[in-house]
């Protein structure tokens, strides 16, 4: 028998947990960096990815791994019809090692980026999203509703509209470091 809360809002019942992907023991193979945001200023998503890419190459600079790392950067505006399963299937077919999806001050992009990461993890691909801390309500709602409240994500504190181009390397440094840590630590 439902209580009244469940009757009005079945969200109260919660969602089934989803599987997580194993972390990478070290960075290797093809890592997909996706700028999937509508930028508050044109090009801001690319600047976030610049910081992450730089952090990845810095972290492997002393590596002796024979496999190596390749970066694939893509731009996918998150407005319009959303078909995350198709994209994840494509990543699986390409044997992608890990995926990072950025979202800016756009809440739809944030929610969709998180869903993509959850689905990628369920498909066995380590994934994380770079999303604004200012959208914490929608971040938590998405992770909870999609069964991965434990998904580790990297956030940035400052809304992008407040940043100038020259600010990005410094502001995103800790965020980029967090991305590496999320992908490579248990």
């Amino acid at each position: 028998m439902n209580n009244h809360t469940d009757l009005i809002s079945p969200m109260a019942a919660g969602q089934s947990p989803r599987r997580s992907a194993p972390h990478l023991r070290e960075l290797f193979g093809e890592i997909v960096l996706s700028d999937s945001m509508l930028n508050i200023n044109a090009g801001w998503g690319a600047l976030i990815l610049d910081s992450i890419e730089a952090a990845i190459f810095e972290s492997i600079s002393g590596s002796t791994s024979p496999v190596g790392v390749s970066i694939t950067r893509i731009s996918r505006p998150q407005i319009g019809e959303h078909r995350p399963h198709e994209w994840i299937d494509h990543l699986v077919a390409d044997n992608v090692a890990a995926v990072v999806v950025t979202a800016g001050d756009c809440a739809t992009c944030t929610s969709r980026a998180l869903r993509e990461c959850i689905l990628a993890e369920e498909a066995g691909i380590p994934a994380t999203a770079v999303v604004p801390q200012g959208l914490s309500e929608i971040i938590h709602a998405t992770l909870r509703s999609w069964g991965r409240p434990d998904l580790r994500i990297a956030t940035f504190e400052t809304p992008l509209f407040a940043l100038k181009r020259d600010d990005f390397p410094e502001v995103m440094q800790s965020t980029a470091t967090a991305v590496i840590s999320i992908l490579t630590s248990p």
Partner: protein
Amino acid sequence: MLGRKLGYENEVIATLPPSMGQATWSNIAANAVIAGCAPSDFMAVVAAVRAVAQPRFLLDQVITTVHGLWPMVFLSGEPALGPDRDWAREGDALSGSTGSAARIARALSLVLRNIAGGSPETFDASTMGRPGKLMFGFAENTTMSPWEPWQVRAGWASGDCIAATYAADSTLCIADMGHDDPDILLSTITDSISIPGTYNAFFRKDLWLLMSPTHAWIFAEAGWSIADIAQAISERATQPYGRLRGRGLFGFIDTHQAPTWLRPEPGNTDLISIVDDPRRVQIAVVGAPTGGYTTAVFGSGVTTTEKIEHE
């Protein structure tokens, strides 16, 4: 409220993103009761839920966006008349002060808030929201319209009642009185809606124009059809790209992100229409016969429709 659906109350009507909550006869009815619906409103609420659940409505985008988009509910057709079937077709039609249209829209809003996750505490990240988000529902004034009912123009049978939903932004009331010249009236409308900051200016999808009977008859008596008006809106509600470049949502455009229809070069002098096809212009006659007004409902995306089934 459930009526003949008792016994089927847990049947899933739609799964609603972004929370992927399951809307059933039972929980839709519960939210309809909270909205103050009469039992005779219930199937219209269900139709509206089904309409926003259509994938092309992009409900997750509508709910999660920082913009103030929220579904508008438009009712078209001829329900059996009676005290409980008054959709409030005439005076103050858009305000929700009378009739069942506002209750139906309010019920849909509660369903989206409680089942789909559309509250500020969860998925609704709207920066400012907008007036009308709690309820924005109205019906066509078929009695005073010079044209075929909207639902017939949308491909439904003349005897059908339908609920249409559209991801609406704020409205703009356009006053134009003191003459009966359709060209002047059209110019007032097109000049008023050709502004850079709307989502329509960038996405160029559906645009709703709600005409008072007075405005509708100015066009009709001059021999203008709905298609004529829509074509004229499409051709004249334009802005040069030089005026839009870098403004409104056009500020998003960079080398990676430009609509396929746009040449984003600085020297581009193309005129950008508010719609990408005249059929995007949705025109309905709404309100009382006195007063010359057209209300533009800006928004994003397409209009979805569902038939209101009999219980």
